[in-house]
């Protein structure tokens, strides 16, 4: 498997069917670790970085943590490939744009990936579609145990796993869920939901994590605290909160269906109309319109499109995916035309 192979198929977290993915689109668990025998990223020499990459690649192979996978060296791939990986949530912006030896080991099915030399030496993550914290955490825990049998982690009896930023110290665990909350947005209840979330020591971010704006009513909710709570407590806490928010969203959707069906349908079919007829679509606009269409499909208002197709459209209409398909760099205005063409065709026009 290579990057080119995976670029034309749905991402791991887009599998529809196993768990309900209407509101909770995907769940993720990430563990941050540093090797004890090397300085942290800010003080690593070029040689240190090279050695850490080599060491981790060897250990990952040896322990068969990722039984079938491929390694992507950030220094050897072009900007489009790096953006592609970001769009597939395989790497962070930090890994894509940093300097020096760094890369990511990706399992063929993209469910597990291990970043090397991002902010910390090792950042392993597991992704599952739908509401599946236990699945994601179990996978990443297995990875951690296997690596710790072969490597000496930087660990402190008081402060736990030691990370470059104190905000990740302790468990080094970031558990997060991607939620689709269009109904709560329409009924103006989102502010209240977010106030509650931050009071509970959870953080809310847009579609692409740190520093991004919420597009298409997709929100990433994650734990804020990593020290002083066990991994189990963190997972249980965020699970409970996400379940509550999902319930609220479903309730809001029901309200819109029963009290305001015409206005709701209008919004949804206008979005469908634009998607099936436009000649120019920016990625921002496409995200917003597809979000409405997704709601329409979930509520059975739109009957001729399935969720899997929506997921495909959301991913493949992203800038790097479009350019990968065409196998070349394309300027933004041309991409916008290509995007509309791709979506029109995919929706049967």
């Amino acid at each position, binding site marked *: 498997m290579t990057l080119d192979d995976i670029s034309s198929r749905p991402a791991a977290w887009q599998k529809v069917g196993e768990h309900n993915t209407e509101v909770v689109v995907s769940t993720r668990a990430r563990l941050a670790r540093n090797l004890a025998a090397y300085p942290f990223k800010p*003080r690593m020499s070029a040689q240190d970085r090279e050695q850490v990459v080599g060491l981790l690649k060897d250990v990952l192979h040896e322990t068969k943590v990722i039984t079938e996978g491929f390694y992507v060296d950030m220094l050897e791939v072009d900007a489009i490939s790096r953006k592609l990986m970001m769009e597939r949530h395989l790497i962070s912006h930090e890994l894509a744009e940093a300097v020096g030896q760094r890369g990511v080991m990706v399992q063929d099915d993209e469910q597990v990936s291990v970043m090397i030399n991002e902010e910390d030496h090792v950042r392993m993550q597991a992704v599952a579609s739908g509401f599946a914290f236990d699945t994601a955490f179990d996978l990443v*825990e297995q990875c951690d145990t296997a690596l710790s049998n072969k490597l000496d982690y930087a660990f402190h009896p008081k402060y736990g796993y030691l990370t470059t930023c104190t905000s990740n*110290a302790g468990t080094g665990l970031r558990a997060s869920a991607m939620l689709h909350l269009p109904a709560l947005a329409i009924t103006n209840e989102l502010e209240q939901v977010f106030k509650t979330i931050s009071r509970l020591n959870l953080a809310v971010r847009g579609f692409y994590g740190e520093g991004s704006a919420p597009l298409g009513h997709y929100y990433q909710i994650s734990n804020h605290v990593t020290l002083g709570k066990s991994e189990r407590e963190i997972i249980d806490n965020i699970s409970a909160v996400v379940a509550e928010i999902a319930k609220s969203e479903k309730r809001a959707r029901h309200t819109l269906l029963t009290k305001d069906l015409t206005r709701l349908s209008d919004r949804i079919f206008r979005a469908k109309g634009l998607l099936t007829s436009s000649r120019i679509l920016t990625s921002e606009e496409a995200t917003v319109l597809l979000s409405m269409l997704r709601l329409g499909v979930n509520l059975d208002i739109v009957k001729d499109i399935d969720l899997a197709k929506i997921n495909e459209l959301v991913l493949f209409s992203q800038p790097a995916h479009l350019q990968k398909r065409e196998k070349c760099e394309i300027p933004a205005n041309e991409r916008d035309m290509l995007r509309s063409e791709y979506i029109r065709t995919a929706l049967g026009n």
Partner: protein
Amino acid sequence: MDSQKCQRCGKAEAKIHVTEISPEGEKTQIHLCDACYNNNKESEVPSEFSLQELLSGIGKKEDVPDVTCPSCGMTLKKFINTERLGCANDYDLFKENIESRLEHFHDALQHVGRAPKGGTQMAERSAYLRSLRYQLNAAIAEEAFEHAARLRDEIKVLEEDNNSEEDNNDA
């Protein structure tokens, strides 16, 4: 209006614009980011205003003597500016600053949860390895190649010890 870059570090956005007027009436303007301005302030001749500030407690902006980590070269000042640490040793070296951050962010100081197996002996050896690596990088930079070679050998021996220990653990 375009955002101006700090004239000191050239990286962050300049948010503070200081105008100095010389006795002859000449004006010079300096544009600095938060971090560089705070650094700049320390080296200025104290005026009646900074005395005022000190009295009101603004001088708590960590006017501490700088500390350097022997394992990685990270300084306390650099850590405060960047909020990023240099190695595991820094957690103990900068204990006060670290703990105040941990308390502020996590409302906790004691880790609860998973821990890797292996005792403090491994930790001490790793700390030693780290400081050897730091010395090796410095020796290479100074072109003290003989010293560097000796350090490299020592590192190699320690690493081999580590490996054979881990293999024994697996058995």
